[in-house]
Every structure is written in structure tokens, then in C-alpha cells.
């Protein structure tokens, strides 16, 4: 099963990952991390295909992808 892991404390909330996800499952969480940003997150993990496009465009290397 595909799985994306977000290192939420490193996320700066730039939303670039939300632009590129082909499944459109990444959204910005309501909670705020220690840096003061809304971190990117995924709830419908079963829809993830582990394409890793989000991880490749993330400027802060927040995302790890497993399959």
C-alpha cells in the first residue's frame, strides 16, 4: 500500500505539493506547526499511488514516500 509521510514540523505551508498531486488528496491542515504554518497533509491515504510527485516538488524535503 502506498504511503506518504509528512514531516509536519518542517513544512512551511507553501502549497506547491497540493498543486501537483494527480489524485488531489493533499490539503493544508487546520492545525498550526511550531514554525507557525498550516502543514500539508493527506487523509484519504488509500487513494495515493506513490507517484512521489509531491515529494519531488517540495522545497523543504518534508515528504517521504513508501510503497
Amino acid at each position, binding site marked *: 500500500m502506498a504511503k506518504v509521510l509528512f514531516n509536519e514540523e518542517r513544512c*512551511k505551508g*507553501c502549497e*506547491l505539493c497540493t498543486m501537483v498531486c494527480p489524485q488531489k488528496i493533499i490539503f493544508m491542515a487546520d492545525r498550526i506547526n511550531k514554525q507557525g504554518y498550516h502543514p500539508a497533509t493527506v487523509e484519504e491515504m488509500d487513494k495515493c499511488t506513490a507517484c512521489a510527485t509531491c515529494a519531488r516538488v517540495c522545497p*523543504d*524535503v518534508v515528504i517521504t*514516500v513508501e510503497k
Partner: protein
Amino acid sequence: MTVVFDRPKSLRDVRTHYCPGCLHGVAHRLVAEVIDELGIREIGIGVSPVGCSVLAYNYINTDWQQAAHGRAPAVATGIKRVHPDKFVYTYQGDGDLASIGTAEIVHAAMRNEKISVIFINNGIYGMTGGQMAPTTQIGQKTTTSPFGRSAEHIGYPIRMTEMLAQLEGDNYLARGTLHNAAGIARAKRYIKKAFQYQLDNRGFSMVELISNCPTNWGMHPKESIEYIKEHQLKYYQLGEFKGGEEASK
């Protein structure tokens, strides 16, 4: 479970000081991935510029030397000539490379120094507060061109890679972009080829990467990606200009 994507080993596991959405982070990661793949971390010596990426030495885990503004190619020349067995690369922005450091980069390329240059072109001075750079687009508003850059008054943006591609010699010159996943994958291939050029003892190599500056462009990171597509990429042609397979076609 197999890991599809993870942080490269040569990229230190720390928070970067870059603004949200700044593509310096992607460029750092690509350089670190290529360093990992070529296994050159132990022989790598980077030369960092003046600008936002001056702190690149905190992130990419090779040896580093910081140079005066624009002088990274000159410092890299010295390091490479004293240590020809090391891998020497510079990481420079456009205010550094295309403005104050124009003489150094042109002459390092002319001498065909066996160094590799990563040139980040975001069309603005980032660290100093968003002033106009030689690479700023016509009509682009900056703190020193508040009504937009005018061609009549200031001239047209400089295309460094094309300029250096006129020089004779076995050198590698390419321009990639960091604004989407396909562009990033292609940019990584260019960086790998550029680094391999030096490892094969061939000559000078430079990869220009089209980047953004959401803070000083005054845009959301998502809007800055659209700006790259609509303006930067219309003016700066992507591809290999010298030394690559695409160039020889």
C-alpha cells in the same frame, strides 16, 4: 514496504532558512542527490556565493568555502588548480553570477576551468530586498524598478548560458527549470551530466536553473509558479546549449 522517495544522504537533515515555496530547496536537493549517485561527497568542495544561498554550506554535506560577492568561479579556480583530484563546484544566484560576478564567470568559462557551476536564475536580488537584477523581466516590478523594468531605459534581460555557449572548448552548458516535476527531473539529468563533465576531466560546466522568489516577487508560491510559466520560460529557452546530446542534434 520499499521507500520510493527519501531525503538524499548528502542533504543535512535540518530546517532551511529559505522562505516558503523558495525553489532553492529543490535545487539543493538535486545537487545532493547527484552527489550521492556519483559518490563524490568525500571529494566535493563547494563554493558558496553572496545572496540567500550563502548558507548552502549548512545544507549540502560536502566541504565548502565561501567567496566574496560574484567571485565564486575565481575561488573555485584556485581550489581546483591546487587540488585537481577534488570535485569543485559553485552555487550562485543571478545577482552574484550575472551582475557583480560577470567577469569571473566569463573568464572561468573562457579558460575552460574544470569546475561545475549551478546558477540559480530567479530574476531578482533576493537577500538584499528585491532589487532589479540583470535577469529581471521587461515589465517586472522590483524595489528599484517600481514601474516595471523598461527596455528603453535598462535594456533587456541577459541570457548567460547562451552567452557562454559561444565560447570554444569542451564545455557543458544547459538551462533547466524547477517549476514542475518534469522540469525538476530534467534539471537533475543536466546537473548529473555537468558534474560528470568535471569528473571526466573535460572542462567547464554550468547548469542554469529557472527559479522563483515568492517574497520579493510579491506573490504566493503558487502564483510564482504561474509567473515562471508565463514570463520566465517564454524568455529563457530550456535545453542543452553545448556539450549535450540535445545540443549536438
